């Protein structure tokens, strides 16, 4: 299952974050520079753990690798217009979350071709947009949102300051009580109780 042989027949077991395992061909895996650096020469005894990524993401990434096994060696980013129909379908059928997961996994696995295509796709999404549209696309907080956030933070800081002041005040009081000699404390309490008793008797 997992030997250092370079034959494309060799299958490797990959383990996802869910703990599930699935087969990937050696030829597909060799497109990952991370895999090459870690396992190619020494092999792996069991499933290779890529447990930061879920099964769907890893399968999608290796689906791309399997497809591009027979393509010529990668020579720099290809323009989006030059992508094949299969490549376009591959990207189009992904939702936003999956796309981000695929970029992250592809970056970790260091699959240069896939990472470059993903980056090119993002650059293309930004092309022709004005600043406000870009802020929406890259989900940066707007000036109003930043202002609201700052106000909330100021309120939180003020509340925290109040709590700290109150705590300091209480600590000061406790310290004064602790500093009183025991006899004096007993006398003070006795006086207080006598005063209370007298006020009750008067009533």
């Amino acid at each position, binding site marked *: 299952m997992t030997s250092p042989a370079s034959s494309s027949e060799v299958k490797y077991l990959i383990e996802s974050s869910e703990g599930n395992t699935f087969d990937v061909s050696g030829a597909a895996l060799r497109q990952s520079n991370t895999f090459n650096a870690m396992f190619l020469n020494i092999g792996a005894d069991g499933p290779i753990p890529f447990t930061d990524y879920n099964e769907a993401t890893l399968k999608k990434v290796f689906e791309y690798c399997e497809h591009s096994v027979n393509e010529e060696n990668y020579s720099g*980013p290809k323009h989006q217009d030059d992508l094949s129909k299969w490549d376009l379908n591959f990207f189009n059928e*992904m*939702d*936003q979350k999956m*796309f*981000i997961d695929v*970029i*992250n996994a592809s*970056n*970790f696995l260091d699959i240069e071709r896939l*990472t*470059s295509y*993903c*980056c*090119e796709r*993002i*650059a293309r*999404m*930004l*092309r*022709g*947009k*004005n*600043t*406000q549209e*870009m*802020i*929406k*696309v*890259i*989900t*940066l907080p707007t000036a109003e949102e930043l202002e609201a956030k700052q106000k909330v933070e100021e309120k939180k800081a003020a509340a925290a300051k109040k709590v700290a002041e109150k705590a300091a005040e209480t600590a000061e009081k406790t310290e004064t009580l602790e500093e009183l000699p025991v006899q004096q404390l007993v006398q003070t309490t006795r006086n207080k109780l006598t005063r209370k008793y007298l006020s009750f008797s008067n009533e």
Partner: protein
Amino acid sequence: MSALPILELPILVLMKILRIIDVETVIPISLCSRKMYHLVKTFRDKSDTLRLKIDGIDLRVQLATPDGNYHEVEVVAGTSETAEWVKIDGHLVPIDRSRKHHGWNTYWDDKVKGMQSIMEYLSDLLSK
């Protein structure tokens, strides 16, 4: 695919994206936030030399690429109702895409001050 939080992507991926974007995209994306400005300034593709042509008569700055394309940022007096507001060199100014030429129009009360601010902004953003 509508929203894409690129600032949450790994820095290597973000660097690749910023290296790919063209001059036309560099200006509006740098205006998104201070953080984005510094990221664009640091990671944009600096292999091609951009030439900054300053036209003091028509009050515009031209960004010329080695392949002969150019993008203009023009300084216009007054304001525009349809333009979006961005911060350039500390000034909040309206900006919109020019219909006359390939580039942007910026609207200023003081055109001379506007020209100076645009020059400073672009020369700092595009310096190597």
